[in-house]
């Protein structure tokens, strides 16, 4: 997957982010350099305060670095103006959050359509694309349910469908299983692995070893620095989920 001639999807060099905190400053990220190729499944690990969330925000174009460079698909995006960053987030990155961040009292379909709304896609095309993505995450029958009518796992799948709706190159998941029980967590990770197999680069930020085990590469952060970059033989979340269902319903076997 990672050839010497191919441009990495993500390429950061000496990335630094300093937050002012009253009189002093907090060095959240203290010089990080890393390349991530297209098609990788990366887990970003570290205790809280290690800088992994800051790294994630910079990679996701939600924030701009204090210094250093960031090339996304070969394009320098580190210091672009706000609207240009909004465009990149809209067209090329899909976000999945711990708290799902779905709009309340809004149907699943409309939630999934949201990024297309800001991309200026006409209504008919929006509906069609959103329906297709909801079907892809297995929620075709829940189009008109509001988040309150869906389970946590279903809500996260709606959020994943929303992340997918603009056909992004990269999916950034920030603690995607943090609010879910272990069974549902496996299903969500299985979905992310499936998307990765279809060619989408996936980066998951997590502090749980169990979740990181599904990635093919582990990045470990501590005190704002990248201290570990190891390949990993990923576990198959779908198989584990199936096994767990087996256990829960032995009679069905």
């Amino acid at each position, binding site marked *: 997957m990672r050839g010497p001639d191919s441009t990495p999807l993500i390429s950061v060099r000496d990335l630094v982010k300093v937050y002012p905190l009253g009189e002093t400053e907090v060095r959240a990220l203290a010089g990080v350099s890393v390349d991530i190729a297209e098609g990788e499944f990366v887990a970003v690990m570290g205790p809280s305060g290690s800088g992994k969330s800051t790294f994630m925000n910079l990679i996701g174009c939600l924030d701009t670095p204090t210094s250093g460079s960031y090339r996304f698909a070969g394009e320098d995006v580190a210091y672009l103006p706000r609207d240009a960053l909004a465009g990149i*987030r809209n067209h090329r990155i899909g976000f999945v*959050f711990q708290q799902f961040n779905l709009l*309340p009292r809004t149907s699943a379909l409309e939630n999934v359509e949201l990024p297309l709304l800001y991309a200026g896609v006409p209504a008919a095309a929006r509906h069609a694309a959103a329906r297709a993505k909801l079907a892809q995450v297995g929620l075709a029958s829940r189009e008109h349910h509001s988040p309150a009518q869906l389970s946590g796992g279903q809500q996260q799948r709606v959020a994943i469908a929303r992340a997918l709706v603009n056909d992004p190159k990269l999916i950034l998941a920030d603690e995607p299983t943090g609010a879910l029980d272990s069974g549902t967590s496996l299903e969500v990770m299985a979905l992310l692995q499936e998307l990765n197999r279809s060619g989408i680069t996936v980066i998951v930020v997590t502090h749980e070893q169990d979740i990181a085990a599904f990635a093919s590469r582990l990045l470990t952060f501590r005190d704002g620095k990248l201290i570990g970059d190891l390949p990993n033989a990923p576990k198959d979340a779908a198989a584990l989920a199936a096994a767990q269902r087996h256990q829960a319903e032995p009679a069905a076997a």
Partner: protein
Amino acid sequence: MNFLATLKVALAALRVNKLRSMLTMLGIIIGVGAVITMVAVGAGAQARVEDQIRSLGSNLIIILSGNFTSGGVRMGSGSQLTISEDDAYSLAREIPSIHVAAPTLRGNGQVVFGNTNWATQISGITPDYLEARQWEVVAGRPIDPTHVDSAAKVVLLGQTVARSLFGDADPVGETVRIRRVPHTVIGVLDRKGQSMIGQDQDDVALIPITTARKRVLGGTNVKTRNVQNITVRVRDGADIAATEQEMRDLLRQRHKLQSSQEDDFFIRNLSEVLAAQEASSRILALLLAAIASVSLIVGGIGIMNIMLVSVTERTREIGLRMAVGARGRDILTQFLVEAVTLALIGGLIGIALGAIASFAVGHFAGWRTEMSAAAVLLAVGFSGAIGVFFGFYPARTASRLVPIDALRHE
């Protein structure tokens, strides 16, 4: 993001908080309702004054006898009469825009019937006077030219005089004595009511001008043909100011005044007095509208307050929208459209409320009210402008949020 989609998002957000949206709109509803009602009441009052002007005759001009200067001594006005019957006939003959010009010779005197008497104003007139004043005779018949030619001893009584002397009895055909000269009552005049300055216009007895001069009022005026005033009615649609100027030129020429000498007569235009009244009623209407628009501004501040609360409450939503690609201007437009929608819906409800209130005021208080399309359009435009003005600050605040801060907001 196109406008229709933005509008849908805004309407959805307003629907989510129905009660709050209604309460927010209340300020605008009351404001617009008050403006519409007050403007309607003001316009009604103005229309009533305009009607009054029309009924009193805006094309009435009165020429009064002016100063008489003798050897450098300026006598007070009316001390000696400077205009004559012939001036009136000449005016009517030579100025085409004049409908009638009626000379009047006036004096006061006692009118006696049997053992009752009544002091009133005696006016010596020509038949043109009734035409000029648009004064109808409700019983009997009017003074006609033969009465004038023969200096007939006939009299038309005003309502007040008729009632004072005859009570409810019919005076026509009876004989009254005016300054001891017996006159036959040939008619009773229609009720005119009070004049602009509060005089009872019905307290009058009209006799032929020749009779007044020769038999009743007498004095020095007998020798001359002078009169106190000339009542002129201008033809409908004629230019009052131009006619006044023509009259002035003609009178100066007839009175052989040098250009250095001042006029020896006054020209009074009734519409000037009425115009002043109209202006004051217009000021009243403006004042009412100004007071009402204060409540509109208060309503606007209410919208700003709620929009600011809404932005704080929905910070996470704004963060999410930004994370999935909303630009600053998308967020700005969304909140601005929400504020304007609130204001406009409030404005429309306010117009309906104002229409109902105007009708109620007209119906129950008996005031005349007139709703104008201009006021309605103005109210809609104004409430929209209030939405933009008071919605802009909260919307800009929202659009300037940093996505990650907004996302993490609790």
